[in-house]
């Protein structure tokens, strides 16, 4: 379980007129399945996710993942419990897909890859259908393939918790759907707890088990897709007139 207690982050100097505060957020994200973080721009979704992944300092409050305080526990320990992938990934180093995925094993092997590590790497690559591409360099891949390689890296890390910050960014329809299906499989077949920031509420409704809606730095709704996919709820969260209709695969939010 991921448990946040009165977590806050302040941007800009305190008391200044332009100060922006995220939080305080207190929420428990259950283990297992996919939890989607949704909300308008600037709601604090990425900030919260990045703080859970201890890539951003917490100004107040406490974050525990599987009973470990992410701020106080050694980073090495946390790296075996949770992995996080941010939006922007650009490496100056030239890497093949397999080398990149291999770095995911660093917390376990400190760079000396064992047979065990190699097996994890192969399986993560196969899981994301990158087998044929594993010898390719990242700069020879399309955006969608590269995104898959990054996800393979965090899966190879072998952590119970996988945090992803808008992994569908820059992906076309086909690749976005594939990515969500693969994450669904990661949750169902590998037993991972996936927390994901999504922009498209319909993707969240279709593929996630729980939706956490944020607005103005605080959590405003937390529930199953059926509970969140209501005209009134979505209209309030997004400040936009939203109508939910029954689609072929579940409820669809129409807001165009």
């Amino acid at each position, binding site marked *: 379980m991921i448990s946040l207690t009165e977590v806050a982050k302040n941007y800009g100097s305190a008391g200044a007129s332009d100060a922006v505060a995220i939080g305080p957020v207190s929420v428990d994200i259950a283990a297992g399945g996919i939890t989607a973080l949704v909300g308008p721009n600037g709601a604090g979704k990425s900030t919260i996710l990045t703080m859970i992944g201890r890539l951003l300092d917490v100004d107040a409050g406490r974050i525990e993942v599987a009973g470990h305080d992410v701020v106080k526990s050694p*980073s090495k320990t946390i790296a075996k419990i949770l992995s996080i992938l941010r939006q*922007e990934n650009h490496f100056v180093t030239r890497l093949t897909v397999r080398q990149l995925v*291999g770095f995911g094993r*660093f917390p376990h092997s400190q*760079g000396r890859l064992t047979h065990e590590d190699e097996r994890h790497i192969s399986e993560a690559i*196969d*899981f994301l259908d990158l087998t044929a591409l594993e010898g390719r360099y990242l700069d020879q891949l399309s955006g969608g393939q590269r995104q898959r390689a990054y996800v393979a890296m965090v899966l190879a890390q072998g952590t119970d918790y996988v945090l992803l910050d808008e992994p569908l960014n820059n992906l076309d329809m086909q690749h976005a759907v594939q990515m969500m299906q693969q994450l669904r499989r990661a949750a169902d*077949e590998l037993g991972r707890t996936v927390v994901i920031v999504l922009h498209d509420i319909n993707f969240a409704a279709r593929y996630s088990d729980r939706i956490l809606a944020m607005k103005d730095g605080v959590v405003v709704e937390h529930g199953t897709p059926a509970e969140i996919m209501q005209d009134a709820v979505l209209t309030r969260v997004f400040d936009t007139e939203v109508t939910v209709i029954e689609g072929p695969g579940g409820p669809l939010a129409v807001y165009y």
Partner: protein
Amino acid sequence: MTTQLGHLRRTPPVSSGTETASAGTTACAAATQPRRHSGAITTRRHGVRYWGVMALLGGLSVFFTAGILGYDNPMPFGSDGYWLIARMRVETVLVIGVVVFCQAMATVSFQTATNNRIITPSIMGFESLYVAIQTGAVFFFGIAGITLVTGLPQFLMQAGAMVLFATILYTWLLSGKFSNIHIMLLVGVVIGGGLGSLSTFMQRVLTPSEFDVLTARLFGNIGNARGEYLPYAIPIALAAAGVLWLRARRLNVVALGRNTADNLGVDHRREVMIILALVSVLMAMSTSLVGPMTFLGFLVATLAYQFADTYSHRMLFPMAMLIGYTVLAGAYFIMRNIFYAQGAVTLIIELIGGIVFLIVLMRKGRL
């Protein structure tokens, strides 16, 4: 399905090896294919190329070393005088070795820490500080001032000042509220530029003879290096480089940037500060020994990335050193024996090196 994915699962696998043919996923291919491996060398061809280049560079290094030691020796080969002269030239070879060793390790590590392959430690005001100290000595004390900054205690103090300058800059800028490598670089460039202008101003008001003496000091000068510093510079450089070598696997992760490194459990900020402190030690050794070598580190690191084509610092470091040695020893040999101007090796490094660099870059089209 469960079987093949068993290892990725966090819970223990349900069974093993009983239903391998199920589902037809690609996962079962792992068992039947030839062993798939990760590692820094991707293919056999890559390995052959890496070791081929290393062997070629090694050969050239030996050739130029022999050339520096033995070419144009006026005494008959094998006589006592011949060996005496050769032994005197060993110091030059050592200086070249130490300078290249420091520059190669420092630049590759620096570019890894800053996640940037264009800037070098020279830009961060190291060499400007050296130039400012030297110029200041002549400016305030005249020609006699140059002797004030020459000598063992001065060498250690100058090196200490450079390390202190860099470490304060890094810790101040990387801890605290900036914690932003771009701001640190910008401040470094501005300080470097400021010190450079200060030096230029002081040089303007020097007498021509003072200026002449100073210029000789400021030109990257192998032949004029202070050999008596070597017994101190070598162990210090080896110690700093040894630490970097031991941390090479972490360097590989640091090169992936802050977010990825932190995700993998490597404390990026701490690693970067350690790396930069060691880089400042190496740069101080090199600069105090021979003066500014602005382009050498950049050239050597860039060529090493091109030829080694790997993330592994344990492959990049030796490659960078050998490239640097070949370039610097070659330039020294050519300048000394063909142009009789061993003082100006930086000229040839910047000319030939620059051309080689442009050719390689144009052909590959990436850094």
